[in-house]
């Protein structure tokens, strides 16, 4: 794959972005530009902010400073959501009521469908293609709860594909996924790369996806620690995620970036006592 083309149009961009959740800084000084056709992976340890970064790109987390732009428009005015396919971090594709694989994937087509409009032939084809792309064609009518964890992840990927996105954003889609599903996942992504779809992948482990990557971004403590060509191994990434602290006199406190205790009316996830 050619490395980043400096002249390609910018698809997604954060300029001087910062995010605080419940008064606690989660992301700081983020400058990230993703250009058309790039395949970018976001790596980093737990709590490094990589997931928050893509959620900020998708407008799910508000920025406290800086600006997010998708396809050239500021997020606040961005309306062209049909160009974006998002695979949120999920353990399963199920909910309280049974839903078939087809129904879950078809909900990914809504961004290209008007209100109260029946599905057109084009929509049905896109849904069938998306299901075929992740290898679930034989399970179309089955309930999602009967699928394995890896197959459920594939259904969620198909849901994002059904909208035929130009920008594909995946938040840890392969966490805890079986080997066969990882292989199917890598083949799906390779096909998207051939079609020129811009991809941002948050990952814990790369596995069979590694050869597709154009660029790696490593997050550490809410900042971008590395942004450049793919790193040869996770050994190198360890170097970038290492918390090099410049205050040797201080004893290092336990680092917990996502405390999750709250009282009934708390609007935040930050309920930690001081002292």
């Amino acid at each position: 794959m050619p490395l980043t083309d400096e002249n390609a149009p910018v698809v997604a961009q954060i300029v001087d972005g910062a995010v605080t959740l419940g008064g606690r800084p989660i992301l700081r000084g983020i400058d990230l530009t993703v250009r058309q056709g790039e395949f970018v992976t976001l790596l980093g340890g737990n709590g490094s902010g990589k997931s928050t970064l893509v959620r900020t790109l998708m407008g799910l987390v508000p920025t406290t400073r800086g600006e997010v732009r998708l396809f050239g428009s500021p997020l606040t005015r961005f309306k062209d959501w049909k160009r974006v396919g998002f695979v949120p971090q999920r353990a399963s594709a199920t909910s309280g009521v049974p839903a078939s694989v087809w129904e879950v994937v078809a909900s990914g087509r809504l961004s290209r469908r008007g209100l109260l409009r029946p599905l057109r032939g084009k929509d049905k084809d896109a849904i069938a293609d998306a299901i075929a792309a992740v290898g679930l064609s034989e399970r179309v009518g089955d309930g999602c709860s009967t699928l394995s964890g890896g197959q459920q992840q594939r259904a969620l990927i198909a849901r994002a594909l059904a909208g035929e996105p130009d920008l594909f954003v995946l938040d840890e889609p392969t966490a805890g996924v079986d080997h066969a599903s990882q292989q199917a996942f890598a083949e799906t992504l390779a096909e998207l790369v051939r079609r020129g779809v811009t991809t941002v992948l948050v990952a814990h482990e790369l596995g069979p996806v590694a050869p597709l990557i154009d660029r790696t971004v490593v997050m550490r403590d809410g900042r971008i620690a590395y942004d450049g060509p793919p790193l040869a191994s996770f050994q190198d990434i360890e170097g970038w995620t290492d918390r090099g602290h410049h205050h040797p006199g201080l004893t290092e406190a336990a680092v917990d970036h996502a405390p999750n205790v709250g009282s009934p009316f708390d609007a935040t996830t930050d309920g930690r006592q001081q002292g």
Partner: protein
Amino acid sequence: MSILAYDFVLLGLLGALFTGLAAPAVGTYLVQRRLALMGDGIGHIAVTGVALGLLTGAAPILTAVVVAILGAILIEVIREKGRTGGDVALAMLFYGGIAGGVLLTGLAGQSAAKLNSYLFGSITTLTTADVWTTVVLAGVVVLVAVGLSPQLFAVAQDQEFAQVAGLPVRFYNVLVAVMAAVTVAVAMRTVGLLLVSALMVVPVATAQQVTRGFRTTLVAAMGIGTVAAAGGFLVSAYIDVAPGATIVLLALAGFTLAWPVGAGLRRRQRLRAPFTAAAAGHGPHDDGHTVVPEDHEHRHGDDCGHLAVPHEDHVDYVHDGHRHAQHGSHYDEH
């Protein structure tokens, strides 16, 4: 039964039919979002609305609609803002609603029996205006719940995905809350405020014993709800008890019948599911095979009675903790 009483029953039946159609339609989305008790909470809050009507002399069904909608929106806001402790805040709202209702009813000088007719439904106090309000509002709820089902499904299934797909998520969340509130308020004369939630949830739970998809669940739940509401209403008219009790017990009876069927279907499906072929180079039976050291009194086959499961190019038989296929003179454990 006099002709007049017969008219009353027909009128009430019409209200019950529409309630039975609307309650599971909204209930499906509540159950999908794992908010099965939301209808119950709105019902508690609506008690205050009814009492407000009794106190001021306004039609209780209208004050109940207004208070229930306000309460439902408040629940939605609390749910959206406070992620961890939302349930405690909701519980306080529910108790506040019912306590406020009892207080206001007392202030209005009304008896507990009067309030009871709203809590558990009542045939004899139904008015024509109540029934037509029920028919119109429940009709609107059904049209919205079915017409917007792709959008409502997507939002209830995965809120973040729906937001990134450009759907106005908050609008749809509030819409479901308002639909639930309207349903609770119109259902109070037939099922009653304290039992309406059962009509929202039980038909959905019954339907999903045998369904695999969302749309079939929605339609089946509406059918089951209609049968339970109409049947329960007729029984209550016949034996002269509060209709809420008979409607809910009939719905629960339906669930009791459906559950063993569903459990059987699920078990059968689990057992019959083909075993995944182990990837090349994985699994023990690639390097030779595991021979079962057990004597068999018969050959496994189509008529041996043991569960047969297709596995790659052969059929595995499952019995007594074994899962194996014939291989020449012996059986291989797979």
